[in-house]
């Protein structure tokens, strides 16, 4: 019988696979699942992957204050980073500011954080948003915190690499400036993804099913990964318990 796993565990392993070969992964604000994925990728790489977590003391060797994350990215020393978004559109634009007409928004989000910079400079930016619905994945964002692509001539070594949601994994095609459905999570179908995605995207004839975590990976997530993420995200770590123990 295949092992039982939670949604969070499936997402952690899905994101971690996207980090293969990255030397330095940085994790920003409000990112417990991406942070856990970074620690899983680190465990797979035998500890060789450097993981920097904003807000951590144990997993943050920066000594130059808040600006160092951005300077480090500008120097080309960060290979992967994560962005969320209250809205994400089909061109990879992200909105972290709010819904409605700026500045008198109907719903205010926290703000753009470092997205308007890191999205340009980090080669592998992974968009992560657990809620996969037409209100999140929209045809066009209400406010562009950070654009998915840039005009020729704009300095832009970085940009979107993939989008991971609670239902599916997409890759991003920079030349077509569109997402492509790579795999649907267990329990989803190409039709259910189409129905819950507000933007248009490319899809292969038969998209794969996202491969669930195996026993060994689950042991890593429930052991060292959970211990590492607990420092910054104690509430998340407390929920990251095996389903059979719950």
């Amino acid at each position, binding site marked *: 019988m295949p092992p039982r796993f939670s949604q969070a565990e499936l997402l952690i392993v899905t994101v971690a696979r996207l980090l293969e070969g990255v030397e330095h992964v940085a994790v920003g604000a409000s990112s417990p699942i991406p942070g856990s994925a970074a620690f899983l990728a680190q465990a797979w790489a035998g500890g060789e992957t450097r993981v920097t977590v904003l807000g951590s003391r144990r997993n943050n060797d920066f000594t*130059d204050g808040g600006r160092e994350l951005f300077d480090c990215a500008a120097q080309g020393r960060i290979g992967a980073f994560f962005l969320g978004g209250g809205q994400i559109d089909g061109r990879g634009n992200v909105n972290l500011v709010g819904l409605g007409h700026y500045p008198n928004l109907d719903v205010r989000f926290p703000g753009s954080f470092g997205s308007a910079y890191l999205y340009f400079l980090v080669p592998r930016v992974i968009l992560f948003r657990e809620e996969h619905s037409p209100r999140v994945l929209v045809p066009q964002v209400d406010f562009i915190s950070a654009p998915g692509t840039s005009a020729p001539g704009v300095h832009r070594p970085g940009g979107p690499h993939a989008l991971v949601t609670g239902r599916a994994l997409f890759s991003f095609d920079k030349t077509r400036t569109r997402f492509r459905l790579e795999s649907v999570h267990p329990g989803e179908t190409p039709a259910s993804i189409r129905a819950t995605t507000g933007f248009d995207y490319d899809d292969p004839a038969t998209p794969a099913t996202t491969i669930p975590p195996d026993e060994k990976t689950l042991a890593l997530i429930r052991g060292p990964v959970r211990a590492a993420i607990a420092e910054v995200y104690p509430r998340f770590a407390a929920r990251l318990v095996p389903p059979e123990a719950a």
Partner: protein
Amino acid sequence: MTGAGLQSLEALASAIPNGASVAIPPDYSFVAMAATRALIRRGARQLQLLAVPQSGIQADLLIGAGCVESIECAAVTLGELGPAPRFSAAVSSGRVAIKDSTCPAIHAALQASEKGLPFLPSRGIIGSDLLKVRTEWRVIDNPFPPHDPIVALPALKPDVALFHAPFADRRGNIWIGRRRELVTMAHAATRTFVTVEEVRDLDLMDDETLAAGALPSLYVSVIAEAKNGAWPLGLAGFYEADDAALRRYAELASSEAGFARYLGEVLGARQAAE
């Protein structure tokens, strides 16, 4: 103590005038929460907050208590506890003006002031709607190859930098460790106000390992002692955040009535200790 003057917490809060622009650090840095409560107690008004580059409970409290006219920030959030409710409500309704920014733009604009420069250029940002709403930001041509467009960010020079630190020495030098954004804030600001857990009878400059983490008194205007001065936030390396107290805030602040209750509970109860 020479250099910066040691004052009471109340005197420190009174010396920050209404209408001042006040730079504050993020929740994971060294946040002057006791001084924030003292500002609320003294009824501070029309503060122009500058979050370096983001804030949490500190900005939310000041906004909820009616102390703030505007805020420049890359984000305000209570992190794992969810959105910052008083910030969200005040900004959506237009009661508090917002200058939305992005983290490195705030750092760079403060560094411009540090260097006495009128602006610093920054990569990124082009194509973001931030450029539309921040009309003072300009896209200029990089004068050097590859002559790409680049964003010019005018210098930010806050009237006041306000933070908490583990300790000061007898000469008014402040130990800030690796929280270097506090140094940038102090360099850029006209005056810097610091609360400390304690004043220690030593000279940070006598020991190179301590001197490396010091902000010289040259940049510091006022120091006040405030034990547990970051509460309910933590002071990294010294004490942890008070999880239950932060949760209590997030619960109560979700409504205006709840927020008023929180102020009633906390301002009075903490005053004796502060």
